[in-house]
């Protein structure tokens, strides 16, 4: 018999990492045997307060704990930011379909991210670099508003840049005195020559407006809509394709996504709003 879909199981916060002024990563240890695929999401419950959806930012290969990176955006995330080490929360999931890693094998993977969108991308990135030889290359273009908004700074500016087969470029919307690199939204560091647009798989994750313009740019470069993978953010409550909040056309983002190809959803109204 199936278990009750709405019953969270226990989960302990074992560490908290400050990433930026509004973003923290929570290292959690779920009870029992918890496995997920990169790109899938979980519903995190703060008992008595509320529940919100997050895509884990750690590699699925790490099974004894999981990292969830959370930006303060609403009532539940504000309260989560006040949590302390040792606190118990609830977790449901994992839900939905993640990134189709096997479809990326032998190809260049072109990752375009913005803001806290780097959280799901980090999980994908770690999954890819674990078997980097299986992919032609991993090309990452990532932007944030200001230099202090970068998350996973240590890895992003150090270790990740040194991995063979990985090419990372970063940008900020507004520079400060220290910033020597590109200034401009993420589309300003995308180039037709970054990857072979006829074969590469593009992955886009970030705030809706950034996803919209990045997708349009990729289409302009000649990417076919079937090879643009989008991590869609919608209001999600049940996680199992019933409650209706997250619908994009006939799809439930929670169950059929959250990763979709642009081809799947391009005909439906208001996908970026």
């Amino acid at each position: 018999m199936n278990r009750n879909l709405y019953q969270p199981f226990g989960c302990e916060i074992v560490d908290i990492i400050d990433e930026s002024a509004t973003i923290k990563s929570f290292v959690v240890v779920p009870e029992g045997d918890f496995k997920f695929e990169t790109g899938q999401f979980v519903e995190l419950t703060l008992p008595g307060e509320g529940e919100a959806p997050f895509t884990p930012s750690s590699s699925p290969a790490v099974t004894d704990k999981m990292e969830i990176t959370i930006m303060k955006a609403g009532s539940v995330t504000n309260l989560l930011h006040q949590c302390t080490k040792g606190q118990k929360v609830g977790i449901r999931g994992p839900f939905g379909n993640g990134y189709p890693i096997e479809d990326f094998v032998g190809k260049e993977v072109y990752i375009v991210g913005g803001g806290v969108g780097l959280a799901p991308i980090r999980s994908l990135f770690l999954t890819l670099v674990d078997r980097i030889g299986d992919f032609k290359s991993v090309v990452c273009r990532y932007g944030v508003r200001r230099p202090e908004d970068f998350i996973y700074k240590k890895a992003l500016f150090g270790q990740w840049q040194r991995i063979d087969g990985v090419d990372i470029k970063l940008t900020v919307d507004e520079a400060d005195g220290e910033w020597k690199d590109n200034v401009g939204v993420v589309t300003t560091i995308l180039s037709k020559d970054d990857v072979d647009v006829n074969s590469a798989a593009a992955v886009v994750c970030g705030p809706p407006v950034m996803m919209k313009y990045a997708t349009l740019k990729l289409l302009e470069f000649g990417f076919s809509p079937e090879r643009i993978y989008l991590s869609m953010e919608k209001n999600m409550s049940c996680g199992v394709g019933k409650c209706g909040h997250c619908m994009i056309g006939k799809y439930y983002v929670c169950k059929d996504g959250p990763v979709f190809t642009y081809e799947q959803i391009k005909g439906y109204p208001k996908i970026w709003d």
Partner: protein
Amino acid sequence: METVFISNLKAFLDIAAEEMELYVPERSGERFIYNRYDSSGRKQVDFNNIRAGTSVKEFLFPVRELASVTPGRFEPDELRPFAVFGLQQCDIRSMSILDKVFIEEEFEDRLYTARRKKMFIISTDCTEPGESCFCNLFDGRGFVESGFDLNVSEIKDGFIIETGSSKGKDFVDRHSELFGEVPAVLLSLRDKNRAGTQKQLEQQNAELRFDRTIREIVESSQEAEVYDEEAEKCIECQACTRVCPTCHCFYLYDEKRKDYFTKMKMWDSCMRYGYAAVAGGANPRKTLGDRLKHRLLHKFVYFMDRYGIEMCVGCGRCVDADAGGIDLRQVLKELSEKAKSQAYPLQGDKPAKGG
């Protein structure tokens, strides 16, 4: 299928109420609402010749229910069997629609199935469809042929009871002393009554004969200003989605109790402003017109794409309930006219829109 005759409805209901919690429709103003059956005889049982004002979903998917507890875990209790008398063809069809959502194999909603399994369905024939009824657009004919345990047709001097399941047949067999044989003349009278209902439905909805399927009409009229114009009447009361027997949106919310925590499951409405808004502030359907359009697209296009059936049974409850005066039949008529006059291509033929 087996038919038997009974002249005394009360005797039948008394027996059913001995075995199960029984709910029956009671007349309240111009409509019927469900109440627990009272076998004392103080209340007269009203045989409902039209669907009740409230929908069957309330028995399977209550307005608000417990979904989980923390710490510990909540698995839906074994409920006592219960019976609902007076459900009609539109109700039975709406249950088959809800079943598709809540009894999907890997995602079975046990809050729903716990009730569904324990429900004994006693349907009745609709012989007096209301002014707002338009079930004939969705294969409705005012009587059921499947999906029930027992069906009751009011007939001269009594009632014909038909069995529709092994549970229903067992019930009749167990209480065979109550029932008699159905005279053939009464069966043909029942057929005549049923044909009368169908004729009435066809007559009153003669104007709703469209040259395309409703799905095509709704899918091809997405740019129509009809939605914005109709939405001007909407006062966002959400009554349409509440009385609808197929609308099933809900949300989960958390509560503190004395020494534990709960997650509750409560009805929601896609007509509500913040329904699809995310914490970051984005809201894909800020206007009432966009929400009304989404409601129709879900009912007639998206649900059809997913489950092969419209998410509407034509019961007309939303027409009766709408405080602002939006009439789904009128909206469909206007969209059909638009589709005709502007020859909108089907959505699949349109170029993709970037935003």
